[in-house]
């Protein structure tokens, strides 16, 4: 289904999540449009990762609804996400230590596979061709991210910055329409962060991005819209410039006066 940039890709409407007596998300709404970058910021415990987990189907909201391209997402499972065209990177990377870098990325390419498990089990010619294509596609993404030289290595032995790129390659290989990035800048050097910012902006040619991030410089630089969470509630949303001068944000999130916030 093709959609224009004015339409909603993902819509989260009035989502509430409680863990026992703790309100993790309260009436949170969010709309992601195609080829835009939306930053979700807030102090630790604000509910950012919980929001990602709701979108991914790991947590069922108590109230509220989600829709993808106008169709309701009800009781969706995490394993359906890739098929919908949504990919996510994890804060802890979550690379498979026992698989090579190339195998890690190929695992993310399953959405593009044209043959099923039975064909793979039987080793049919079609499945062999399919696997060759997935391998080539995975190598192409690794090359694009300048990590093709480590394709046959296991991720455990690689520097953190390289592992981050591998995790990003694994998310991008399925050609998602929406990419959820969970703290992609943590542990990166200034140079690597600049490179990441350019890459995120470049992604918007094809993909929408939701960015959970603590590095305000990066958020203000790459996002079209920023949503600020505090204690599970949306306390502000708008363009980076609007959010930067919002007194509620300065007070609740940064604890500094608006004029002290970093500029883009």
């Amino acid at each position: 289904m093709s959609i224009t940039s004015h339409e909603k890709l993902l819509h989260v409407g009035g989502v509430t999540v409680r863990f026992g007596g703790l309100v993790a998300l309260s009436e949170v709404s969010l709309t992601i449009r195609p080829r835009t970058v939306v930053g979700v910021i807030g102090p630790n415990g604000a509910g950012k990762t919980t929001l990602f987990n709701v979108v991914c189907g790991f947590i069922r909201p108590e109230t509220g609804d989600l829709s993808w391209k106008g169709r309701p997402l009800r009781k969706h499972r995490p394993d359906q996400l890739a098929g919908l065209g949504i990919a996510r990177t994890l804060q802890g990377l979550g690379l498979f230590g026992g698989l090579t870098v190339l195998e890690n990325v190929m695992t993310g390419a399953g959405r593009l596979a044209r043959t099923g498990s039975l064909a793979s089990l039987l080793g049919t010619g079609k499945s062999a061709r399919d696997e060759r294509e997935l391998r080539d596609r995975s190598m192409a993404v690794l090359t694009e991210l300048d990590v093709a030289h480590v394709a046959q290595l296991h991720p455990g032995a690689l520097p953190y910055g390289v592992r981050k790129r591998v995790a990003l390659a694994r998310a991008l290989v399925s050609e998602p329409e929406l990419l959820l990035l969970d703290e992609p800048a943590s542990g990166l050097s200034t140079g690597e962060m600049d490179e990441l910012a350019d890459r995120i902006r470049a992604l918007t040619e094809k993909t929408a991005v939701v960015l959970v991030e603590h590095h305000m410089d990066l958020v203000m630089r790459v996002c079209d819209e920023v949503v600020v969470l505090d204690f599970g509630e949306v306390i502000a949303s708008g363009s980076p410039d609007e959010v930067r001068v919002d007194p509620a944000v300065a007070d609740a999130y940064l604890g500094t006066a608006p004029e002290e916030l970093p500029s883009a």
Partner: protein
Amino acid sequence: MTTFFNLTLAGLSSGAVFAALGLSLVIIYRATRVVNFAQPALALISSYVAYSVTKGTGSYWLGFAAAIVVGTVLGIAVERLLVRPLRNAPELSPIIATMGLLLVLQAVAGMIWSNEPHAFSYAFDFRGRFSAADLFAVLAVLVTATGVLLLFKFTSLGLRMRAAAFNPEVARLLGVRVGVMLTLGWGLAAAVGSLAGLLAVPPFISPTVLDEVFVFALTAAVLGGLDNPLGTIVGGLALGIGLSYVAGLLGPELVPLAALAILVSVLAVRPAGLFGRATARRV
């Protein structure tokens, strides 16, 4: 030298059986961290099915095929009905459950087919130093094990199965249907276990016929590394040959003792097995 050669040949076919049953344990352990103590019982039931079908039709190979199919279905059923409901229970629970199932299925086998031994055919002529039946056992296991290793290493299905085993939550996010992968893994393991049963049972089948073989298979898996299919195959063959030397040179009564000594020694000195990698464990 001739004795040595003969003992090596004799050990190869029994080692192949230990390797196959050990491999069935490893496939499940890698995916779920469960040592499936019910595996010999699943192999036993499928071997009894082979016995009945062969007796009814007169065809060994029809019985053979029926055993593999029934074994696969049983493996899938055990995962779906017994192990999956316990996925959030303490990690010992599914292991204890498979132990319970072992006892139940052995009792059921006795009730259906009686506890008396029945004659069970070999696939081929079993007479001679390294008989056709021995050769078939070695080849069948090597071909099956190679197929399993190729499946894991070179197919996208194998890749998804490995990903599901390494980190189910992340695998789910990448679109892997972890539940389906686990079911397939249990089915595949039970099929390999059934093959081991068919090779180990002759010349007589009774409800406890695979008990000792299971101890040897578990020893092979521990020896090779419970996480390592290739190591288990090598471990199974090495154990078969080693126990054959013990039987031939020191006496057959010492074979179980030797197997247990190897099992305990490996666990004490190198718990990850000769080919396994030590991993951190959450406590």
